[in-house]
């Protein structure tokens, strides 16, 4: 029996070691800075303080935090609304063509994040493709200012994380027994009620997984707001970036990072619980 117990531990060991060495330890190191004071000329002065956390709660920064959360939430909702129908269509396509369709859905993901985001600048700027297209179609007014707006940031975030959401939702949809939907129709529910009462509840774990993914990556993102927001729309990610690289205030940056990480962990835990709940209380006893 000890053989059965030790083997999984052994198999997991390299992965766990990697995570501890390169993820947990550096994170803890950075987080520990949050409890010290900033040196006069940058750097860290090892005097214990909670002042950095108090600054995080300062209305100025809290507002940036909330604003980031709002942008991330909008991106999450938009991504789910686009991804669900796409994933549904792929899962209903002939089995042979599903891998190809999935490949195309994930294709943008194989190119560099920066390049993908720069592409949006080309599309959205005042002399960009969209404005040019509008002009050829006969639009004569002022060119639209689409770049460096909040919508541009949201567009960029949705675009970059959409493949994850499609994959997450597709994986739950494709595992769904199609006879469940047929049973619902057979029992008198039309397509809409079947979707709302059977398909959607049973695929919520996928929606939650994809949604949390977009939200967590969006709220801490700093590349997209910097490029597509033009620095005018500061998100927590940019703030952290600035503290570490511009303001040289590592302790405050670490405190902001800690706040972000706690938010993410809470969300991930909630998502894990929702998934466990939706997949049923499979610990329940079975009566013979």
């Amino acid at each position, binding site marked *: 029996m000890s053989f059965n117990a030790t083997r999984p531990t052994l198999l997991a060991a390299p992965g766990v070691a990697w995570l501890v060495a390169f993820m947990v330890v550096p994170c803890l190191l950075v987080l520990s800075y949050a409890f010290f004071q900033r040196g006069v000329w940058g750097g860290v002065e090892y005097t214990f303080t909670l002042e950095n956390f108090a600054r995080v709660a300062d209305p100025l920064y809290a507002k940036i935090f909330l604003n980031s959360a709002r942008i991330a939430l909008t991106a999450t909702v938009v991504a789910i609304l686009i991804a669900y129908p796409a994933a549904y269509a792929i899962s209903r396509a002939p089995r042979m063509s599903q891998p190809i369709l999935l490949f195309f859905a994930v294709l943008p993901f194989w190119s560099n994040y920066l390049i993908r985001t720069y592409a949006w600048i080309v599309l959205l700027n005042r002399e960009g493709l969209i404005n040019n297209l509008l002009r050829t179609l006969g639009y004569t007014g002022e060119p639209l200012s689409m770049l460096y707006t909040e919508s541009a940031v949201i567009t960029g975030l949705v675009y970059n994380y959409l493949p994850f959401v499609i994959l997450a939702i597709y994986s739950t949809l494709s595992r769904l*027994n199609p*006879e*469940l939907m*047929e*049973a*619902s*129709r*057979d*029992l*008198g*529910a*039309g397509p809409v*009620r079947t979707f709302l*009462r*059977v398909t959607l*509840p*049973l695929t919520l774990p996928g929606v939650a997984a994809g949604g949390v993914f977009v939200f967590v990556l969006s709220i801490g993102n700093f590349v997209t707001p910097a490029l597509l927001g033009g620095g005018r729309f500061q998100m927590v990610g940019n703030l952290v970036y600035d503290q570490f690289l511009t303001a040289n205030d590592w302790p405050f940056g670490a405190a902001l990072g800690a706040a972000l990480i706690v938010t993410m962990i809470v969300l991930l835990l909630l998502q894990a619980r929702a998934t466990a709940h*939706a997949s*049923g*209380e*499979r610990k*329940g*006893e*079975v*009566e*013979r």
Partner: protein
Amino acid sequence: MTRSNTPILRIEGVGKRFGPVTAVDNVSLDIRENEFFALLGPSGCGKTTLLRMLAGFEAPGTGRILLDGKDISPLPPEKRPLNLMFQSYALFPHMTVRQNLSYGLEMERLPKADIRRRVDDTMGMTDLTPFAERKPEQLSGGQKQRVALARALVKRPKVLLLDEPLGALDKKLRERMQLELKRMQNEAGITFVIVTHDQEEALVMADRMAILKDGRLLQVGAPEEVYEHPAERFVANFIGVMNFIDGKTGADGVFAAEGLQVKAQGGKPGTATLAIRPENIAIGPPGDLPVSGIIVDIAYHGLDRVLHVRTAAAETPLQVRIPASGASNWKTGDPISLRLDPAKCRLFQ
């Protein structure tokens, strides 16, 4: 038990093709009110496709389906007053037993009190009351099967369709559920149409049965009728156990094979195959009866024994069924003589 002859469900020249494959080929059938009707055939015979067309999940390529005289072919599944019990049961995993049963009635927008009463009644009838608040995965196979049945029955459909309803159960439970299903059909007064590949199941449960092969309807009739008078060689072979002997029928109507002559009914001159059931062959000591053979195997079935007898007439040994109590002195390798009951012989030409 009221069993009228009015057809409640009429299948008129229904056909269905999937690409180059003809799944159902011009099938016409009448299913009567309150009868327990079985669609029987080997896998791939089109019985499930036919059932799915009745339920509304496939559109017939040709023909019409009439329920109470009205053409229901254009209606989507949710608008048809018949319900299907799925082979996989298809219970909603995120709902309790009670919620599964209530679902169909909620879709009819019935008052809450009515739903509760009808669900309670149906759970009582199917012995599910103690499991009302369980989720499907907390149920055993037999319990899930009852929930699937109850979920369809609670809708009080005009016709209940059952797709291999007992397929997933073990033999003991299956035999018990066969009788249970028949009892519930009687109690509910609903027409049952069951799809099965198990001929024994069809014989036990059905009032009438239809045998399908390669999408074509071969024979429709009561179990005794189909068993005693199979219309085709395939049916004879598929239902129960049948011995086949290839030979010739002479001008006098006497069927002859090597070492065997029988005056069977309805024989036309020419090559023919004689079919006879194992219980219609009598045995005797060597030389007593007209056909001689050697016992090559004896299978004990509790109630009876089946002797496998090699004769000159047939390539495969003939199966002969005898009561188990009487034949303990027969051994493998013994010579034996047989007599085929001419009244029970059937000829296929």
